[in-house]
C-alpha cells in the first residue's frame, strides 16, 4: 500500500526525536570539551617514554638509548643522543641513558613500530590527543621531559598491556636474579669439588634442560 513505508519512516524519526530527550541510547552525542571521551583501551596516537617513578622521571627512564627505535621509525621522527656517562637504572644497574630524546609529533604517523622494536619496554603509545600547538615546529617537537610519563600512567591508559609488561619484566628480573645467584653459587662450588658435578645438582637441571647446555666435563655452566 502506498504510504505505509512513508508512515513507518515518520514513526522512526519521531521516535528518535522524542527518545533523544529521555533515552540515552537515542542521544549518543558527547559534548567534547565538557565531557571528555572515554577512549577505548587500544586507542593510541603518539609514543611516550616510560619512567619507573613519577618523582624522578629523568632518573628512572627505562630507555637505554640503544637507538633501535630511532633506526626503525619509518618517517624518521625520533632523534636520540646518547649520554656520555652512565646512570643506575631502576634495577640499580649502570646504563647509558638518552641525553636527548625527541619525537616530532608533526611527523609521527602513530604506527607503533618504535614500541614493537624496543627491547626494554621503554616506549609505549600514549592516548593524549589534544596536543595542538600554535607553532608547528617547536610546539610539536616533544622532548624527553615532555615524553616521560610514569609507569603508573601507563597502567592507567592501557591496563591489560601494562600488567603484561610488568609481569614479563618481573619474570625477567627474577630469572636474571636466579641466574646471578646460580652463577655465584656455581663459582663458590667450583673450587671446592671439581669432580662431583652432582654437588651442584639442585640448580643444574634447569641449565641442562636447555638445549645449549654444556657437556659435563667442561667448566661449570655459566652464561659468561
Amino acid at each position, binding site marked *: *500500500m*502506498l*504510504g505505509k513505508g*512513508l508512515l513507518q*519512516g*515518520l514513526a*522512526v*524519526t*519521531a521516535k*528518535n*526525536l522524542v527518545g*533523544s*530527550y529521555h533515552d540515552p541510547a*537515542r*542521544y*549518543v*552525542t558527547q*559534548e567534547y570539551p565538557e565531557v571528555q571521551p572515554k577512549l577505548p583501551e587500544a586507542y593510541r596516537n603518539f609514543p611516550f617514554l616510560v619512567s619507573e617513578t613519577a618523582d624522578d622521571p629523568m632518573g628512572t627512564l627505562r630507555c637505554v638509548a640503544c637507538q633501535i627505535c630511532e633506526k626503525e621509525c619509518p618517517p624518521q621522527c625520533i632523534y636520540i643522543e646518547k649520554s656520555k656517562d652512565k646512570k643506575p637504572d631502576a634495577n640499580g644497574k649502570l646504563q647509558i641513558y638518552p641525553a636527548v630524546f625527541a619525537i616530532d609529533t608533526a611527523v609521527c604517523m602513530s604506527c607503533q613500530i618504535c614500541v614493537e622494536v624496543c627491547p626494554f619496554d621503554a616506549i609505549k603509545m600514549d592516548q593524549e590527543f589534544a596536543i595542538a600547538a600554535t607553532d608547528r615546529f617547536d610546539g610539536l617537537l616533544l622532548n624527553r621531559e615532555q615524553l616521560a610519563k610514569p609507569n603508573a600512567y601507563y597502567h592507567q591508559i592501557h591496563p591489560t598491556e601494562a600488567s603484561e609488561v610488568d609481569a614479563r619484566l618481573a619474570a625477567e628480573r627474577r630469572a636474571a636474579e636466579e641466574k646471578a645467584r646460580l652463577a655465584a653459587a656455581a663459582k663458590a662450588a667450583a673450587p671446592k669439588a671439581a669432580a662431583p658435578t652432582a654437588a651442584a645438582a639442585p640448580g643444574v637441571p634447569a641449565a641442562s634442560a636447555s638445549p645449549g647446555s654444556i657437556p659435563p666435563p667442561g667448566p661449570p655452566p655459566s652464561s659468561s
Partner: protein
Amino acid sequence: MILAAAPASPADAWLERAPVLLRDALTGWLPDALRPWVAALLSIATILGVFGLLFAYMTLAERKILGRIQNRPGPNRTGPFGLLQPFADAIKALTKEDIVPRAADQVLHFLAPVVLVALSLIGLAVIPFGRNLVAVEMEASVLYFFAAGAATELAIFMAGWASRNKYSLLAAMRALAQLISYEVPLLLSVVPVIVVAGSLSTTDIVAAQGGWAAGLWPHWHALTPWGFSAFAVFMVAALAESNRSPFDLPEAESELIAGHLTEYSGFKYALFFMAEYLGMAALSAMAVTLFLGGWQAPLAVLEFIPSYAWFGVKLLLLLLGFIWIRATFPRLRIDQLTRLSWKFLVPLALVNLINGGVWAATADWTGAAAVVRWFISALGVVVPFIFLARSLSAGYGPRTYRYASP
C-alpha cells in the same frame, strides 16, 4: 454557532481586538486621508517583523529538531540553548564577501534573490491571521496568492540563468519542471475548497469553516473526506513548491553543488534561504486558511484564546511537519518527481474535484442522509487512492537486497 451562554461573543474579547485597537491607537491621530496608508504600512511592518523572526527561529528549530532526530543536540553554544544562533548566522551572512561571477548577468544576478523574497512575501498579504486581521481584503485573494507563489519559480530560474554556471542552469531547469508538475495538483486541490465555500476570498473561506458539528467536530475542510484528500495533495505539492526535501531537486546539494545557489554568497545566499522559509510559511498559512479552519478555535470552549494565537499554533504545527518530513525522506529523482505528480497527485486531485462538487451539491442533506453523504465522500477518496497507488507502484515491487538485508 457561537456559544450562546457566553457573556459576550469572543469577537469582543479584549485580547481578540488588541491588534486592531493598537492599530487604531497608532493611526487615530492622523488625518482621515492618511490613515489607511499608515495602517497598510503598519501591517506590512508587522508581517515583515513577525515572519522575519519566524524565519530566524525556524532555522534554529529546524537545526535543533534535525539534530535531535539524528541523535545529536543541534546548535547550543550561542546563547542559552543556542537561542542567539540566528543572529550569529545573520552577522556571518552580512559580513561575508559578496562574490558575483564575472560572466554572470550582473543585473539579473542581483535581482533574483530580491525578487524571490519579495514574491514570497506578497502572498502573506491576503492571509487572514485572525479575526479582522488581514492586510489586504480582496475578492480573489486565493487566485492572487497562487499567482504570486508561481512567480517565485521564475525568480529561481532567473538566479540559475544569470549565474552562467552549468549547475545553476541545470537546477533552474529542474525548478521549472517541478513548477509545472506541482502547480497543477496544488491548484486542483484548492478548487474543491472554493467550490464548497463558494468564494475566492480567504476571509470567506475561513468564515465558511466556522462552527462545530454536534458541538465537537469543527467544520474544517481537512476534517471531511474530500477535504482531507485535498489537504494531503496540497501539502505534498506545497513541499514541492517550496523546494523542500524530499523535493529539493533544484538545490540538490549532492548532485548540483547547491543548484541555483551555487554562485551566490553572503547576504544574497541568506536571502534565498529566507525566501525558502517565507514560501514555506506562506504555503502553510494558506493550508491553514483553506483546510484547517484558519483562525477558528478547534473547540467552542477554547474560543477565549485569541484567534491569531490559534492561527499561529496551526501554522507552527504545519511548519514542524515540514521539518519532520525533511528529516525522514530521501530526495526523489526527477523522473520519480514528475511521475508522482502527473500519475498520482493530478488524477487524485481531479477525482477529488468531483468529490468536492458532490459534497457542495449535497450540502442540505441532514440526518441519515448526512451519513450517506460522508460515506460517498469517503468512498470517493479511498477508492481512487487505492487504484492510483496500485498503478503508481506497479512494476516497482518491494526490492530485495542481496547483501544488505537486515
